[in-house]
């Protein structure tokens, strides 16, 4: 496969994984918690490196998973102890992220991970960092990691689809019929953490948020059915990745940044044009109502 094709594949895998997980975040009104986790994952990665002294995927996934859950847990703790929820998220993520950046600067000589890289990602380097087993080259390791995380996410969603769906739309009923709502919450948070860390290398901490939230929000404006929303969201994720790659190529700018920008443009167009929940749709609906009454 060519250099460009690997990058498109990587970007698309990020788009699909984030797009699917992101739908649930939007339905559960936890978008900012995902934003928080995507920042704190940095601390997880730095700590994982300082403990294991390796930059291998599995350590990163474990470290990020633990810190991601810790973030969700701390926010929950502050929330129940009376801090209003937006401030709880703000305090937790900024402090953990700041701590991560300080560690990173303090051990800068040892960690082969610079802050800008962590923040913005370096998808252009992905194709060169290949996975080699027994001397056979198996393609970029990021693609493998993203693929595994995607399969893991899909399996978890498939297994717990009904539970996640009910607890997202009606948490009170879910609790009443005996669904372990807390478990589902932390399951989703783990999915967000590992998806974030897998996408981290390619698109960086803050643009992961764009890939998590924007496709889901766009899909939310287009349909009322969860399954279709998941499909549309995954598709928009891929479309932003591919569009972003070619836009970046054309203007010679950051690929990750233009993926986020394209996703934003798609959202903007949908926001105006969506037949049911868009601005135009609403104007048309209002006009037809006033036409009927006049």
């Amino acid at each position, binding site marked *: 496969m060519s250099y460009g094709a690997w990058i498109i594949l990587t970007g698309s895998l990020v788009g699909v994984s984030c797009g699917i997980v992101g739908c649930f*975040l*939007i339905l559960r*009104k*936890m*978008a*900012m918690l*995902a*934003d928080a986790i995507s*920042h704190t994952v940095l601390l997880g990665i730095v700590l994982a490196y300082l403990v294991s002294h390796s930059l291998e995927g599995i350590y990163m996934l474990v470290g990020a998973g633990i810190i991601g859950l810790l973030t969700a847990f701390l926010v929950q703790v*502050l929330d129940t*102890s*009376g*801090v*209003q929820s*937006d*401030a709880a*998220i*703000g*305090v937790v993520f*900024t*402090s953990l*992220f*700041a*701590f991560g*950046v*300080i560690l990173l*600067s*303090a051990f*800068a000589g040892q960690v082969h991970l610079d*802050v*800008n890289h962590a*923040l*913005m990602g370096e998808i252009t380097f992905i194709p060169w960092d290949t996975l080699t087993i027994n001397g056979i080259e198996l393609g970029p390791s990021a693609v493998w990691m993203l693929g595994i995380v995607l399969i893991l996410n899909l399996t978890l969603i498939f297994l717990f689809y009904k539970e996640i769906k009910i607890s997202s739309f009606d948490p009170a009923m879910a609790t009443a019929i005996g669904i372990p709502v807390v478990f589902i919450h932390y399951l989703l948070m783990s999915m967000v953490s590992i998806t974030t860390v897998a996408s981290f290398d390619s698109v960086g901490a*803050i*643009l992961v*948020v*764009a890939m998590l*939230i*924007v496709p889901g*929000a766009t899909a*939310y*404006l287009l349909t009322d059915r969860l399954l279709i929303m998941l499909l549309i969201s995954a598709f928009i994720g891929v479309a932003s990745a591919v569009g972003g790659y070619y836009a*970046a190529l054309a*203007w*010679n*700018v*950051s690929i*990750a*940044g*233009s*993926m*986020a*920008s394209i*996703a*934003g443009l798609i*959202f903007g167009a949908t*926001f105006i044009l969506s037949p049911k*929940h*868009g601005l135009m749709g*609403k104007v048309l609906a209002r006009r037809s109502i006033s036409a009927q009454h006049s």
Partner: protein
Amino acid sequence: MWNDLILTLQDANTQWVLFGSILLGIASGVLGSFALLRKQSLIGDAMAHAALPGICIAFLLYGTKSIGWFLVGAAISGLIATYFIQTIITHSRIKEDTAIGLVLSVFFGFGIVLLTKIAQSENGNQSGLDDFIFGQAASLVGTDVKVISGVAIALLIITFLLFKELKLFTFDRQFAKGIGLPTGVLNALLMTLIVSAVVIGLQAVGVVLMAAMLITPAISARYWTDRLDRMVIIAGGIGALSGMLGTILSSLASSLPTGPVIVVAATLIFIFSLVFAPQRGLVSKGLKLYKLRKEVARETVLQSMFDLTETAATTGGEIGFSKDDLVERRPMSDRKLQANLAILQKEGLITKTSVDLWKLTSKGAIESYEITLNNRLFETYLMYEMKFANLQLVANDSWNYKEIPSRTLSELKEYMEIHDRTPKLDPELFAAGGIYSDQSDYQRREVN
């Protein structure tokens, strides 16, 4: 270490930077208090991230690094982002948190695109633009600090002059509108003030962590007071303190970016407030809970003693009760019961009749009578809550029958009598050695 510190502090540039970051801390703490109370803390986060493309565009248009134009660019794109967030919330079914996350990440992504574009452009001396991501107070020069301090002081003066209006608007928007305040203008003004506070902090703290400067001092101050004027002052103080600590620490170790150090300093102050603040802090809450539990346990044992004595007196049974009797009346762990019995004995409220049997003393009878009467009146009140709505009780821990108007109290007592819940043991007669058990006689006494 100390020599280093003194040397660093003698440096004129460091003094400027320190002065700037202290003013910055005050301004963001003060405005953060308003953002927090309006539940808009995370909008500050969005504004900070959204400032990045504004800074880049200002650089592209102006050509070199200029703090003034950067502030203008950042403020404009921050305001545009805020406007987008509000539009998305009002015109679609997307909720606030999603809208914030969406605008924040897309603006930041676009900012990164522009940043890479600038890096390749011919006047690629983009030195300083990277500092906006994590903040580097050391990179501030005299003119930067003058602009930052000027804006911070202007923000503080505006807030001081319009304090009353902003306060009213923050707590009760409807009322503010009702008495004729221009709420639309105030909203726009407050947003502009917050954006300006965010923008002047960008170079020292960075876009990613600027939100903490708005949120952390304000939420810490919230623990210490319930009054907005005090909260604003405390938040300003905490902001100033963390700004100062962060700047000094990061100027001592040159590899440390300033923003994260300031944020960690602010977070430590927050944790201190969370744990030790009077009234709201975890320690004082824990103490309060402990005291309440202790009191409830003591009252529970006393009331059980009263109930048992009452039953024994009316049926002519033996006065003297074992621990099993008490546990059967109101379940309690053995250790806790033992401890409470010991306390009550020490207070002279109960005494041992034989090895393991307890009875009320005359003093104990009076106190347990009061407790029982109070609790039974409360039970009666709960049964007829609607009839006694005039009492307007909020929390049940404030229930004290002596505070109830006498007419209502006698009404309550009538209902208590209907349900046969009137305490039938007269503590005075009990003390005199007799036991009051005659129902009709009791009623007669009570009416008198």
